[in-house]
């Protein structure tokens, strides 16, 4: 092996960081997202989402509206606040994203996922870094009803910990939502695994485009929504046959 081909310590550290991010974004990372359909199940029971095309349509709309203005934008805003050392902003965003959510199940779901993500991160990473301390503080606040809890904020703290910039972070978070939703759809609609992967690949362009748009948005858009997506999440509460918690 020549000296030039030797992998540097820097390269190793960089790729390790990326692998660690992949782990958190993977649909098998057990934070309970497989229990939540973000309202998709209501469309499924109403026979509006029935196959590859209708699922892809739903996923595209969900990502470009509620996700873009909601958790997607929240990752960016929270990370930018953390980069400026403005922790108070994080608690304000936690409140705003939760109170802009009309469906009680969606608020409860976000809290559950946030708590499970926190627990898992704390099991894997237990050090004295300011970010891990902040994750612990968030956990305490949620458990004492001082904060509501949202996974996008936990994710942003983790991205700060791994020193990943805002644009990449929103893309990775988008990826994690897409991979989870595709797996949920494969299981319940059901779709074929291969179709699921094809849809996932097609939707990457949508994710990149909306993350580009997010980079231009400010906090006035946080928590915005559209009627249909919101209605499906509200109505999930009273849907008789349910596999998902929201």
């Amino acid at each position, binding site marked *: 092996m020549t000296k030039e081909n030797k992998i540097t310590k820097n390269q190793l550290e960089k790729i390790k960081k990326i692998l660690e991010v992949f782990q958190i974004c993977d649909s098998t990372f057990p934070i309970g997202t497989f229990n939540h359909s973000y309202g998709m199940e209501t469309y499924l029971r109403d026979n509006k989402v029935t196959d590859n095309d209708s699922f892809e*349509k739903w996923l595209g709309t969900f990502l470009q509206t509620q996700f873009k203005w909601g958790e997607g934008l929240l990752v960016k805003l929270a990370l930018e606040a953390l980069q400026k050392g403005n922790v108070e902003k994080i608690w304000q965003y936690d409140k705003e994203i*939760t*109170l*802009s959510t009309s*469906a009680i199940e969606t608020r409860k779901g976000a809290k559950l996922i946030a708590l499970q993500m926190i627990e898992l991160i704390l099991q894997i990473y237990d050090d004295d870094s300011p970010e891990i301390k902040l994750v612990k503080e968030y956990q305490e606040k949620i458990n004492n009803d001082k904060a509501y809890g949202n996974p996008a904020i936990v994710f942003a703290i983790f991205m700060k910990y791994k020193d990943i910039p805002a644009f990449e972070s929103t893309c990775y978070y988008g990826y994690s939502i897409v991979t989870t939703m595709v797996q949920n759809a494969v299981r319940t609609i059901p779709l074929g695994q291969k179709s699921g992967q094809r849809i996932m690949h097609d939707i990457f362009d949508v994710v990149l485009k909306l993350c580009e748009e997010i980079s231009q948005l400010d906090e006035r858009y946080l*928590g915005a929504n*559209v*009627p249909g997506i919101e209605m499906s999440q509200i109505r999930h509460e009273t849907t008789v046959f349910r596999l998902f918690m929201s």
Partner: protein
Amino acid sequence: MDKYDGYTELSFIPKNGRTLVDTLKYHGQSRVSARMQLNNEDTLCYFLIAMGGGLTEGEDYYTKISLAEDTRAIISTQAPTYIFKCDNHEITHQINEISVKKDAILEYLPDSLIPYRNARYRQDSEINVEKGGTLIYTDGLTSGWSPDGTEFSYEDIQLKTQIIYDGNLMYADNVILEPNVFKMQDLGFFDNYKNYDSLVVVNEKIDDAFVKELQDKFKQQDKVRVGISKLEGPGFVMRILGDNINFNRKVLMDCVDDIRGKLFGSPKLDLRKDPRFVY
């Protein structure tokens, strides 16, 4: 108030167990009706009026409504409010500032907004409800109007509503509709429906059981799609999507009547508007 193209201010105070109007001001393109006599009750009721039937491109409108302790009032509109076309892409802006003190009851029940082709509109409502106060608040939007009958031909609309209860933010509703970017009939937007209505009610007695009862009563409808969910505090939101504004309105007002009866022993509300005339 001169900086607004339309300005309305209405405030109410208590006197010997009744409610009196303390301030009634309007300016520019805005007017307020004379007191409306209602059929079944003597609650004070006024209609807000936009001169020319609607809001004009690029203009700013401001409405301030305050209810002091122990007062009660109903505010509605004379007719649906048109948002006129914005051919120069200038945004029309409505700001609502509402305050409801302890033991006061405000029913704010405007008719729907009808956006013209190319209309651009922003609505910002900030509503402060003191502990013990009651708010019954509606918002409605049709698929709009255009000369050739095309639906959703407006450019973009944002409806923001912040409700602060007992000094704390309780609900921050933010609806964004962009027919210039997305097809509004599609899945997730209007799901092939045309009309959108929203009702928010805040009152100390609203808890999980109260909301469950409403869900059981209203969730199944033939002609419209209805969703009801409890807010983070003593309140709930009801959403309605439907094809015909009168069916939306019927469910909305049935729910308002149900709430009025349950919370205050009030009769069914009759605003004396002929639906055939209004819509």
